[in-house]
């Protein structure tokens, strides 16, 4: 036990000393400072030992394991991009974001909100060439979602469907092939190309099940089945299913159509504000089928 005077002296000293840190105390150092092999004591063989191929810089190739099958040959290859064209992405749009867009008038809730309308808001971007095949609606903000909307997305979970229908709206899941997507993502750019509006393709084999299923509100499903599923979903989640009047909330596209009011095969001229179609009966038959 130090004396009173000693303690006071120590405290006075402490005021002037630097703060204790790693650079002013003795502590174990796992990485000692490297010392180059130079000068009188580092010279002669400079750390290479006596003779041998290592002293003469004649090393074996990198990865050589003395004859044992090396790691880079033993382990099989893995193609990083194998099947990447089959891994389709659906960038998310949350219900909160959707409600915010409706509140701030970035999107028109009076008409159908589809892929084009979400892209046109300027807040979301879809890149079909990066395997992005549409939007999916996520359930973040589903408790505060109260606006009746007519939604058309590419994927939605059961909870999201329930949230949209509880608010008095409708939701459909629809498929768009690559050519249709490129037209939908930027219609202005597409019209300027001078290419007729494409005829939407049907979904591929592994997606047909999803888009013909009424429980996922597929666009190819039977409307009567869809109505029945709306009722059962309301019972499952325990809400009163509001009546949806015929009008903007129920407008639907034809399975071969990508734009409302415009048929496949039509050519839109933005400068002259004119729409053209082909006279040839075979071509118009194809587009109308």
């Amino acid at each position, binding site marked *: 036990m130090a004396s009173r005077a000693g303690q006071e002296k120590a405290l006075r000293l402490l005021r002037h000393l630097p703060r204790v840190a790693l650079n002013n105390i003795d502590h174990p150092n796992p990485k000692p400072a490297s010392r180059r092999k130079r000068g009188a004591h580092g010279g002669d063989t400079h750390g290479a030992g006596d003779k041998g191929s290592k002293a003469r810089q004649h090393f074996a190739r990198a990865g050589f394991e003395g004859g044992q099958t090396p790691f880079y040959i033993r382990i099989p290859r893995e193609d990083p991009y194998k099947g990447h064209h089959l891994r389709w992405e659906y960038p998310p749009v949350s219900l*909160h974001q959707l*409600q*915010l867009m*409706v*509140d*701030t*008038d*970035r999107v028109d809730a009076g*008409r159908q909100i589809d892929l*084009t309308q979400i*892209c*046109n*808001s*300027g*807040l979301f971007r879809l890149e079909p060439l990066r395997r992005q095949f549409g939007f999916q609606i996520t359930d973040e*903000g589903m408790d*505060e*979602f*109260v*606006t009746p909307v007519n939604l058309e997305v590419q994927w939605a979970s059961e909870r999201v469907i329930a949230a949209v229908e509880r608010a008095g709206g409708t939701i459909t899941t629809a498929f768009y092939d690559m050519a249709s997507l490129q037209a939908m993502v930027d*219609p*202005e750019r597409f*019209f300027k190309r001078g290419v007729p509006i494409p005829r939407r393709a049907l979904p591929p084999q592994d997606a047909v099940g999803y888009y013909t299923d009424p429980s996922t509100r597929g666009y190819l499903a039977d409307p009567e089945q869809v109505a029945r599923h709306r009722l059962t979903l309301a019972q499952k989640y325990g809400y009163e299913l509001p009546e949806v009047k015929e009008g903007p909330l129920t407008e639907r596209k034809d399975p071969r159509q990508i*734009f*409302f*009011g*415009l048929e496949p095969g*039509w*050519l*839109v001229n*933005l400068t002259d*504000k*004119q*729409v*053209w*179609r*082909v*006279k*040839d009966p075979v*071509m118009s038959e194809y587009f109308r089928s």
Partner: protein
Amino acid sequence: MLAEELPAVEPVDVDWSHVERLLPRRTVPTPTDKAAYPSGWTPQRGNPSLPYSVRRSVNHMLPVYLRIMEDGVKRLTVVRNVRGDIWKLHDELKRHLEETNSRYIASRVNEVSLYVQFKGEYVQQVKDWLRERGL
């Protein structure tokens, strides 16, 4: 392709509003007044009694952001575009955050770039505090 080889076309009488609907807006729309905003967003009402204000972003959102640095370890709440008496806003907001969270919160004021920083994740609390004041 020669003109004779191109297929013959005829004009179609179509409601041009269907095409106009597909074209995007060139500017960000000014939100119209509504009875309620379910998403929690509120328009800027303004508060002349306060010596400071906060300018909304181009998209009419509050300029409160979370900066995540050092691989998720360091989190900073930033309030940008503070106009008027920036120190007053800093003092009042800091007092409110420290009371709400019952802890000391390190902060920083940049008078040149007009921002206030708080060490920690308080974006929602700051936004609520700003909304209460109509900013």
